[in-house]
């Protein structure tokens, strides 16, 4: 029974990961992006849980709970931790218009399929077939980092990049040892907290969080 639906579940989770990343590029509202990020975290946790159950590794199930609490709940909560009224109004004005951005996402996804199949070969496992999704997420994360102007939107780009890396790691090797997984999650959590504090300081210092204003240091 489980063997039959296993490839479908992997495909479903990977599809959800890619879809949320693409939607994040499309939507300009900060609140929508944060909600999508939470969905993405849940999809990633589900993916890990599916792999864990399929391979009968209880360790991976614990890791999936860790991911659910950090990426699905913790980080989005930190990012959204501001009065609901003001966060609803925050709109991003990215450097790319939505059409061009979505077109770029398509190109990046095709590119990652080509790269992965050329370099490693897709193999015949269902996880191998899903691996390019992770690379596509990494590239989409880069796109968000480059094209967004606001501090917290860039932060979301960084998190998509990080989710992409986690996706690749789980799909290619079934995750790293659990102790390291803890260290990685803690590191990401702290980096996000630090950047969040800096974004807050920027708001008080410059009256806004547009990273464009950071142009004082140059040669």
């Amino acid at each position: 029974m489980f063997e039959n639906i296993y490839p479908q579940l992997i495909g479903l989770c990977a599809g959800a990961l890619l879809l949320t990343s693409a939607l994040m590029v499309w939507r300009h509202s900060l609140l929508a992006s944060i909600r999508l990020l939470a969905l993405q975290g849940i999809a990633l946790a589900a993916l890990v849980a599916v792999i864990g159950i399929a391979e009968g590794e209880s360790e991976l199930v614990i890791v999936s709970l860790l991911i659910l609490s950090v990426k699905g709940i913790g980080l989005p909560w930190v990012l959204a931790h501001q009065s609901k009224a003001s966060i609803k109004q925050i709109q991003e004005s990215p450097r790319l218009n939505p059409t061009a951005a979505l077109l770029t996402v398509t190109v990046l996804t095709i590119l990652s399929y080509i790269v992965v199949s050329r370099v490693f070969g897709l193999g015949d496992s269902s996880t191998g077939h899903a691996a390019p999704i992770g690379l596509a997420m990494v590239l989409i994360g880069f796109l968000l980092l480059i094209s967004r102007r606001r501090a917290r939107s860039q932060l979301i780009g960084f998190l998509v990049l990080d989710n992409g890396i986690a996706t690749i790691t789980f799909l290619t090797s079934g995750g790293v040892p659990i102790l390291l997984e803890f260290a990685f999650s803690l590191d990401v959590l702290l980096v996000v907290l630090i950047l969040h504090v800096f974004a807050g300081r920027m708001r008080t210092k410059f009256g806004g969080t547009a990273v464009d204003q950071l142009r004082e240091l140059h040669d």
Partner: protein
Amino acid sequence: MSLILWIPLVGPLALAGLSLLLGTSALRRFVGVAASSAVLISGLLLVSAVLNGAVPESGGGMLRADALSAYMISVVGAVGLISTWGGLSSAASSRTKDAASYEALIALFLAAMSLAVLADSIGLMWAAVEATTIATAFLVGHHRTGRSLEAAWKYVILGSVGVAIALLGIGFIYAASVSTDTPTLSWLLLSQSDLGLDPALITAGGALAVLGFATKAGLAPMHSWLPDAHSQAPAPVSGLMSGVLLSVALYAILRIQSITNLVIGPEFLRIMLSVGGLLSLLVAASLLIRQRDYKRMLAYSSIEHMGLMAIGVAIGPAALPSVLLYVLGHGLIKATLFVISGRILKVEGTPVISDVRALLVRRPGLAVPWLIAMAAIVGFPPFSIFFSEVGIIMAGWSVGLGGVVGAALVLLLVIFAAFTRLTVQMTLGAPPVGLAFTPDYSAHGPRLPIFLALATTATVAFVAEPVGTLLLQATAVLGGTN
């Protein structure tokens, strides 16, 4: 013996806690110095153990000190001691709450770097390198000005993205080991020759990991955060970051290289590192010529030296003893220069080179050590940087990389000229006519750390035993027999 491995980790952590608990005591200002001393002493103990043929291990093989790790931990301690001692804050300013978190973060930073060089697992090494970014983020933004905030933002974003790419690479390397009998991230196990790792995964993993750690090492074209962060941070932090954090990232590259060399041979990373090294030298040369800020000048000098070290790593075992000696020489001298630059900034009130004139006549107490350290950094003998540079260039010639080291030599000459011009502008010449002044012989801070750093770099290249033996042992650890 294996207990010593825990001192550089637990010692600074305990001191960090102490700094937060000390209330308003002025004793707090010695926290950084004490933490560096703990790291340095345990480093020297580990070196002596390694020279006696032991390889201390602890935590079930999680921590391990071979010759290379023991050497690096001593460098971390030594550079840390010069930076923190030279940049000792005044008793009055160390009573504030800001000072408490500052000293605590310095101690955490030292502990993170120690973990990075002592960890046997490349995954743990990665986590420690990321922890250095976390510990230094608030140190870079310590002054809370708009500029330091900008520098800190760029530093954390670029630093963590770079290190995230390294994580992707490490993920691939782990995926390669999963298909063998023993899935592992242990550096010791991965660098055994008969594992049969998948070459495609190791190539991709090695390239990404080196690219990621090169961002942290400040190699061009991923260097853009470095001049901002190193010029905006407080002087002791700049000294630590420039002097030793960059080298810790280079150490990570060395460990990754020893894994990839076994599977795919040295050619692939050799090209990557040579290109990165030459680009760094080019960036440094072109931006040093017209540099106006002396702290940024020092930051670009770090990019230059890391570039040359990367070329040394690309050359391989023949150049590695010189590269390792370089790490120590550059670390001590760069820490000294940043410490003095902090003092000049404090008394002159400006970071602009053209506003600081005739320093030798007006403030000989600062100008004399500044001139000596500048001579050392541009590569005058007897300072060890000279011997390292010569060693790398000779080794490059002998392995057939004459073109690369030739180009590097030309760029080094340009950088030498730029540095000389800027230093002369700052120090020599007569003060403006009609300006009344009395020569200021004060060093504006402890003299002893500066003297120790200069004396060590001037003599270390002549000490064959035990320094030479240790460097050769460290090279042998990386799979080179020289």
